[in-house]
């Protein structure tokens, strides 16, 4: 029931870099260089719009027809991250390529136990669940409004920020 035009997603459940580039929720390389921004990996044209209503900046647009894909206005998005826990599909991440000279921060929605501690070293997994690097927990955020989804901030080598999408604690 997924988008069969995206062959890797619909047969393996894994979005490839080429497939990601076709999505209207993925920011440009230019924008990523300027600071934290949402990276929306949603390819499902099913009814869903909590990301649009969650965004305080009006930077995510779905419109009247709630089966549309979320469109990111990358200039309006300041990477606040409210959308990360709001997305029922856990498909939104925040990337901050400006975190330091060598590191980027990836913020991911996380619903497993144990929740990692600040400064803890964790294994970082790519979209296929393979360990690609070790990362450091910058912080974890879990206000009540997130309804039990924890948002974990992980510092990773800059060149892996586009790959790291999960952790193993």
């Amino acid at each position, binding site marked *: 029931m997924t988008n069969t035009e995206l062959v890797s997603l619909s047969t393996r459940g894994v979005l490839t870099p080429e497939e990601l580039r076709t999505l209207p929720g993925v920011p440009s390389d230019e924008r990523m260089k300027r600071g934290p921004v949402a990276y929306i990996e949603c390819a499902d044209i099913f009814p869903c719009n909590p990301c649009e209503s969650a965004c305080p900046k009006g930077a995510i647009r779905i419109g009247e027809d709630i089966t549309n894909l979320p469109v990111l206005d990358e200039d309006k998005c300041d990477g606040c991250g409210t959308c990360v826990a709001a997305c029922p*599909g856990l498909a939104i991440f925040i990337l901050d390529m400006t975190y330091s000279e060598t590191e980027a921060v990836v913020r991911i929605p996380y619903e497993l136990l144990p929740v990692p501690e600040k400064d803890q070293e964790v294994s970082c*997994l790519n*979209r*296929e*669940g393979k360990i690609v690097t070790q990362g450091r927990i910058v912080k974890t955020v879990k206000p009540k409004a997130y309804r039990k989804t924890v948002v974990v901030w992980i510092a990773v080598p800059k060149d892996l920020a586009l790959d790291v999408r999960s952790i*193993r604690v």
Partner: protein
Amino acid sequence: MEQYEFIVVGGGPSGMSGAIEAARAGVKRVAIIDENLTLGGQLVKQTHKFFGGKAHRAGERGIDIGVDMERTCGELGIEILRDTVVWGIFNHDTLALYQDHKSRRIRAKAILLSTGASENNITCPGWTLPGVMGAGAIQTMMNVHRVLPGTKILMVGSGNVGLIVSYQLVQAGAEVSAVIDILPAIGGYGVHASKITRLGIPIHVSQTLKEIRGQDRVEEAVTIEVDSSFKPIPGTEKTYPVDTVCIAVGLSPLSELAWMCGCEFRYIGELGGWVPCRRETMETTAPGIYIAGDASGIEEASTAMMTGAIAGLSVAERLGYLDPGKSKILRQEKIDGLVPFRCKYFEFRQEANQRLMEMGGVVQ
């Protein structure tokens, strides 16, 4: 015999919605009967956040929605009969109950059948071994009774149920070796699939179960690839050392009570098989007998809440608590809520529901 105005059989999302809408409109003596100890139906097991828009309670977890709806039922004075089985309906108005080891009858002016669905199964050598179980059974053990049924699991079926239950199994501490599906594409949503692949669970399409082996219980499962006409390809077998095989290959409407009421049925594959014909009001061809949720065709919890609400409003109109104009307006809001779940990916559902009503020859 005790007399009720409205009896709802099955307290899942559609049944509770139906009871709530009817009671809100003023229907008195409304009761929900459920064979389980807890209300909520499948909502009890749905720990993920719902999709949809505000009207579908998107962003809320199913389990929280169930608890909230049960609270609303209490506030509206809806009676709840738990641990009670409806084993028959006679004359379209008399329900036979089995409760506390006793049978008794009650009467109702209108009845909503919101009995849900049962799980489909597939067979292969070894399918009766302990450790082979349906996804719903695993969820009941895991999410309701807090018992993990196995430690290493092979998931058969990549629909949303298979994907979600794989995720829940990992959350509960089990290891899911793989998800397989005989179809050439993943059945569930891309986001659900990606959620588990990034945890390291591979999804393999065009594969089926060849055999399950074990002495007294599941010890390993053998999968095999299939070609485009679903024929197994010899030499492509793969053996998984697992203690549990989870079957998530679809659902069939649970509609025995509707058969018993003499409702007309049609076979609509897209809706899960045999479903009762019905009007837009969700009334079947048996007067006063309404149907909603998965029992009226396999869709989503979100659509179940809508079809249940439509049935509840129709009952309120039937019993004189809502004038037809007002009822139509309120029902239209719910019908509008169904639209996004019956277009694009789900266009086939719109067509199937349309076909059902046409085949039923029921006048709107």
